[in-house]
């Protein structure tokens, strides 16, 4: 098993407020790992560190065997680390298709972007209907699809998703997760952040629980389901 992503003792935060206190994680090629935990405990900060939007204070991030801790964000994307940020962060005044093309900004010359586009449209047929529409006029679910589709356009080695269910209706969440399960079946490596373990159980092989900038628990989805007391302690009762 080769490690696709290996994070060792990562410490980071904003200005004088440390958020992550030494976080380590390994994700092997073809794996799907989920990080769950309450809001405001460092999940998004961790992802921002991985993609280079935020600098790590100490610790290392190695991707495909190379230390990328000090690489700028654009180079990490070029290396195959694709981060679909929380809340979509679309280019609001661009059309669906332009947004998708931006996802393939780092694609090598001669890459078949048309084919990639068709793949995204096959996964999310609704986007094909709306391809010319500016994204700010889309529904929340459609915007999420553009966000994920834009990430897929990069054809990276690792897809990092920050709360893909955030703010969506249950029916739409199912649709989004069905697409992720399909990508998993194709062998995609995924790192996914969610608040609630029940969402990720169909997608993830391994679940990490983050609390106050530490991983406090990890295990398989089945083990998570069995450890109700742990989940209740950190995530609250249902």
């Amino acid at each position, binding site marked *: 098993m080769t490690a696709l992503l290996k994070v060792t003792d990562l410490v980071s935060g904003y200005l004088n407020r440390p958020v992550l206190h030494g976080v380590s994680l390994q994700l092997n090629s073809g794996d799907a790992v989920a990080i769950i935990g309450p809001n405001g405990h460092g999940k998004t900060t961790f992802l921002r560190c991985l993609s280079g939007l935020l600098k790590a204070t100490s610790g290392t991030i190695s991707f495909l065997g190379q230390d990328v801790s000090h690489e700028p964000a654009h180079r990490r994307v*070029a290396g195959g680390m694709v981060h679909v940020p929380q809340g979509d962060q679309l280019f609001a005044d661009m059309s669906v298709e332009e947004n998708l093309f931006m996802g393939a900004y780092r694609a090598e010359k001669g890459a078949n972007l048309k084919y990639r586009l068709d793949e995204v449209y096959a996964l999310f047929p609704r986007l094909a209907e709306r391809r010319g529409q500016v994204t700010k006029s889309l529904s929340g679910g459609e915007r999420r699809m553009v966000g994920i589709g834009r990430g897929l356009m990069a054809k990276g080695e690792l897809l990092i998703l920050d709360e893909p269910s955030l703010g969506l209706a249950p029916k739409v969440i199912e649709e989004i997760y069905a697409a992720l399960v399909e990508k998993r079946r194709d062998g995609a490596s995924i790192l996914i952040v969610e608040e609630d373990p029940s969402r990720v159980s169909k997608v993830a092989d391994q679940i990490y629980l983050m609390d106050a900038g530490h991983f406090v628990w990890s295990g398989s989805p089945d083990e998570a389901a069995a450890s109700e007391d742990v989940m209740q302690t950190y995530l609250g009762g249902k």
Partner: protein
Amino acid sequence: METLVQLTLTSLTTGSMYALAAVGLSLIWGALGMLNMGHGAFMTLGAYAAMTAINALGLPPFLGIFVSLIVGAAIGILAHLLVAKWVIVQDGAHTNIMVATAGLAILIEDSILKIYGGYPYPQPFSVTGSVSIGGVAVNLQSVFILLVALVLVGVVAFLLLKTKFGRAIRATAMNRDAARLMGVRTETVFLQVMALAGALAGVSGMLISTQATLSPMMGGAPMLKAFVICVVAGLGNVWGAGVMAIVLAFAEVVVGYSIGLHFGFPAMLLIVILVLIWRPEGLFGKERVVRL
């Protein structure tokens, strides 16, 4: 009828010069999120560079345009590398960058004053002659200015809309972090935008100087007008800036003609005040409105 044609042409000519300056200012605002107070000085520099190249180096006058374009781009790049780059990453960058670029403007203007003195110079480049349009004599200089501006705005529009380079600029303006996650080198985009906006400012200054004279402070009034145009259009709204340049120039020219020359600019300012009362979100809105 003759008056109307004449006024329309004057508005278009004036407006197209404003548009070049305003579009650049708007691009910088949109992509870098900064107000470039050095824009007027860039214009002044473009005008002096063209004059110097023609007078001192003996270049054929029409090449003056290219000189102002290149020198404008160069000062844009320098301003970014020496000033903006270091300030926009700081906390409180919004205010600091205004002070920093205003300082740069003073430096440029005072250097010009030191080298050339305060006397007004004529711009050696000029297109002479006139053509008759519908029985109205139209001087070729105006036609030329209009053409240059149209070509440049057309080139910028093409770059922004049809090229990967332009798409990266628009993406950076709309969402800087997301652009970085797509693999856009936003630092490079900043540099490109500063070069592009500087080039437009340089040419704009050169064209304006053909209508008046060159002086070290000549960039002040057009810069203020460009800013006014951007505010009315909604800061960062590049297309709006282009359109508003023509509209406000028309207002300025018509008021200047019918009421008195000195009322043109105040009329423009009055329009801004009214627009801001009616639609303040252009400037003070919580969400930055960016439409490219």
